[in-house]
């Protein structure tokens, strides 16, 4: 079973990379952009077949390693 995770920076954490990407987009003529925030995406292929159990395990992974909860939020996307 594949489960996806999206990690994003919390709202009040500075994202210099997102800012630079925003500037570059601006320079390319994409002038409608209000803000860009950069994050991370994971695809986890697990042996677990029970969706609830798999999701719980991935949540534990997020808390223990994938995200740093001081600065980041995680969002688990259901099995693909």
């Amino acid at each position, binding site marked *: 079973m594949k489960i996806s995770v999206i990690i994003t920076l919390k709202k009040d*954490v*500075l994202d*210099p*990379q997102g800012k*630079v990407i925003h500037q570059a987009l601006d320079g390319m003529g994409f002038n409608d952009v209000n803000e860009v925030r950069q994050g991370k995406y994971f695809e986890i292929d697990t042996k677990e077949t029970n969706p609830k159990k798999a999701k719980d395990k991935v949540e534990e992974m997020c808390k*223990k*390693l*994938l995200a*740093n909860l*001081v*600065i980041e939020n995680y969002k688990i996307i259901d099995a693909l």
Partner: protein
Amino acid sequence: MKSAVITFPGSNCDRDMDVALKKFGFKNKMVWHQDVELPKSDLVVLPGGFSYGDYLRCGSMASKSKIMQSVINFANSGGMVMGICNGFQILVETGLVPGVLLRNKYLEFICKNVFVKISDKDNAYFKNINNNILELHIAHNEGNYFCTNDQLKEIEDNAQVAINYCNNEGKIEELFNPNGSLKNIAGIFNKEKNVLGMMPHPERMIDPSLSGEDGSLFFKNLINNLK
């Protein structure tokens, strides 16, 4: 005095630290990250470098390596643990010291000498040191110290800030902040002040023919404090 320096895959300041510790009288042992037990030590050092290629977040993988459980237990029982640069990043990832180290504000790798002001001398690292300002070297891409407002309040209430970036006169201003760190924080302690994490490298400032000697002042003072 006995010390131990942990080597992770990708550490590159471990041998410099070994040289520095021995120069000032420590009996140092190098410890591999897959070892389970720490040798008997008065000081454990997590050195600088790029452990695990800085994958995921700097220090995140190293903080989960086998030896770290022993380091965490050692720190929680009052043992002295010092993390320099990548070692500081590893310490924040273990939660031994609060906060995180973000990408530098201006997205540059910074490699230069800086001045830092010692903010607190009521601890075994800086007690009795004559200087208030040290010139040390920094070399990092992720040294931008950040923590939540609640954490900052706690850090300040407990006087956990160890050193701040400043100018040669000790002025702590945004102008002398190389990487965007909150309140110019360059190093912090845990609550009990037996764990110190800092971005500057004292081990790079111990040889008058290569650099300044403010690192020597730090190590000489440190070993005297531990005796």
